[in-house]
């Protein structure tokens, strides 16, 4: 491996990813996004803008919604990260994922992983979120295909009592 352009050497960083403890060798200032995608093969997390505007790279870090393109991996040390790959257990789709499928919440799909994580964060905080609260809560995640309405409908559907987790 060649020298880091940032002039530092790699170090060992422990993170819990989707419930599994892992240890990665990475530069301290490497973006969490790149470590997830390139070192750990978790390519479900997408890069849209690289500057925290579009939310495509959203993941949960210790339960908080973060843009993984803005998180130096050292900051993620000893945290618990959840990516889109951590949501569907045993291939069974979570209520949110199922609702995105049924309501037309995913078109091209590139914003979808980040959007689903943002929605999941929102519903954890506000299980009874209203239409307007969902619009507000997802406004940090850009989608160019849907015009958002069917995404919001999917989140409403997943929030309904009886929607299985």
């Amino acid at each position, binding site marked *: 491996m060649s020298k880091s352009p940032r002039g530092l050497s790699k170090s060992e960083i422990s993170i819990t990813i989707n419930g599994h403890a892992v240890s990665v060798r990475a530069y301290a200032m490497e973006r969490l996004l790149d470590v997830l995608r390139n070192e750990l093969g978790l390519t479900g997390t997408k890069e*849209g803008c690289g500057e925290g505007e579009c939310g495509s790279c959203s993941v949960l870090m210790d339960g908080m919604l973060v843009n993984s393109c803005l998180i130096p991996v050292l900051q993620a040390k000893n945290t618990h990260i959840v990516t889109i790959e951590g949501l569907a257990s045993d291939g069974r789709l979570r209520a949110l994922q199922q609702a995105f499928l049924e309501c037309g919440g995913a078109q091209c799909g590139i914003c979808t992983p980040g959007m689903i994580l943002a929605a999941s964060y929102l519903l954890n905080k506000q299980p009874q979120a209203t239409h307007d609260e969902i619009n507000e809560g997802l406004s940090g995640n850009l989608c160019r295909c849907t015009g958002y309405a*069917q995404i919001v409908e999917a989140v409403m559907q997943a929030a309904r009592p009886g929607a299985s987790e």
Partner: protein
Amino acid sequence: MNRDRIVGTSVPRFEGREKVTGQARYVDDMTLPGMLHGATVRSRIPRGKIKNISFAPGINWNEFVIVSAKDIPGKNCIALIEEDQPCLADGIVNHPEEPILLLAHPDRHLLPRAVEAVSIEYEPLPAIFTMEESETLRQVIWRSDNIFKSYLVEKGDVDSVWEKADYIVEGEYTTGAQEQLYIENNGMIAGFDPKKGITVWGSLQCPYYVHKALMRLCGLPADQVRVVQMETGGAFGGKEEYPSMIAGHAALLAIKSGRPVKIVYDRVEDMTATTKRHPSRTRHRTAVSRGGQILGGEIEFTIDGGAYATLSSVVLSRGTIHAGGPYYWPSVRIRAKAVATNVPPHGAFRGFGAPQSLFALERHMDRIAQIVGVSPVEIRRRNFLRPGQTTTTEQTVNEPIDLDELLDHALELSDYHKKKDTLAIENQRGGNKRGIGIAAFLHGAGFTGSGERYLGSVVGVEACAEGGVRVLVSSAEFGQGTKTVLCQMAAEALGLRYEDVEIAQPDTQEVPNSGPTVASRTVMIVGKLVQSAALGIKQTLEAASMLGDSYSPEEFRVACRTYVAKHGKLSSLAHYEQPDDIVWDEQKYRGSAYAAFSWAVYVATVTVDMNTYDVSVDDFVALQEVGKVLHPVLARGQIIGGVAQGIGFALHEKVIWENGRMVNGQMTNYIIPTSADLPPIRVYFEELGNIHGAYGAKGIGELPMDGPAPAIVNAVGDALGVSFDSIPLFPEGIFDAMQNKAESENRIPSKRGRE
């Protein structure tokens, strides 16, 4: 039509599961062994000669693969309509961000610094940046006249109408560049094998466009070039032509290095270097009777093509044909041209010229209404096209469309008349102003005129060894639902379940050329061919006595299995044949421009904040006739998404140019609507069907881009009593107009006066 079992229902999106679980594979998710990363060194100036290229010390250049124009094995061009655009600039640059040199290295972190360390010495040449500079030939930058293409449409005797006119209404309308802003940046991976040739995997709309461009660039025969579409994260026209450029770059680096090469743009590079919607200027001069009837008119439609021809001629064509909108023009003369400037080439973007000329027309209809003294509703009603009448290209409307009824329905859904009255009263009170505006429009489905005949699309359907069938098309999925609806159509045709149908990933080695995924052509043209090819499978099975008159899906599967086991293969191809009633004269630009049109009336209600002049859309009604709605959830998604882009086009999205370069190429400063910015977008369909599309389908994808901007700008005019003719409409523009309001209030429209 009610007998359809699958068409018309909202089956699960074909690739939906992969998308909601993060398993869908986009190009940047793919890595090949030994793969290098590529980057592009681009022009920093708009126009000039390249005098010298040097490589700064401090970088181990031996580790880099470097490709310049002299490494190109075939012709240095991106073959499309013309062959004027080089793949790599050779001696001269014609726009900022033009590719000059390519670098590749195993560590992508090292590339940005290396790109910076290449210094290029230029001898600058004078550049031109506006349509006006191009028209006056201040500099000749493309062939002899700066004109990529021009069209003349003439119907009736327009020169004789002016003296009969009670009013002559003139107006000039402009629209700005718009970035597609798909959330997945452009990207390609190329691999080269001296025996098998080039393979590219990428984010793209048109596999066979890339295929054609690579054959020319690499000097390889068709069977030595393979193009595979990866899952594509949005396109909107923005991945119609530029992917050929990136595929070419990756291929050149792969050929030189002998290793696979990935090029994935970052957001700034994608926004500044790749295509955008053509800026436009439309001038109308219309002869109108006292009763508000259009007698005839002259329309001058001009678009800025940027530095190379790319798709400008066809964008211009669609804009030209849509310039007359859904109205009857007894006579008309349309002069259209696409001109060259030293900016990166503009290209395909949803609507493809129509949103530009329809913005102008629908603004102009409100201007005519104002001058004649009738309502915006009445002026449209008095001029709507009716079945049996002819369009500007003298195509007889033979669809049973009733635009009066469509308009009435839209007015009812938006509570137009009541709102119009209450808003007028409320606006007297001071405070924020509200207004309501309408736009009526149409969008032609499929390639223009003889375009589909030239394309000659081919579609395949094959029986699978395990039963069921597989659809083979080059039509790409990039969010619209191509895969889902084509599978629905095949299942419907064969009496199968949706689950019995598969569709291949577009790969030029596996699928025939069903044409590019553009022009609202997929469901109508390709869908019809899928239906025919599917029926071919059934006929073969029937002829082999493996299938009776009525059968269950399981019996069909058994028949497929049996046939394939016995004969090894069962496939069926369908070739496009132009219907007899489609006759087009390319020379006179006259005839059946499109096999079918979709029709719409949109109504927008807006509020203008009188402290900030910020415009917000409060309510949006989108009513359209699109033939049979094949999949209600997907169709509604197409309309809402298109309206959202239209709202951005009208109010938010502004490309800021400096010396031909976009300087706000980031999501931070080029603003698209978020979920908090959009009104409720209420979508309604009428379904008249269409004889040219399978199950009555027409195009739908581009239509919703055409109407929002004029409806919104008309609504702002209604709110403020000042009209606006240029988009994007920013608060600054409203501020300027309000400053002049006193003057404009004193201006009394006069007969024959220029407004």
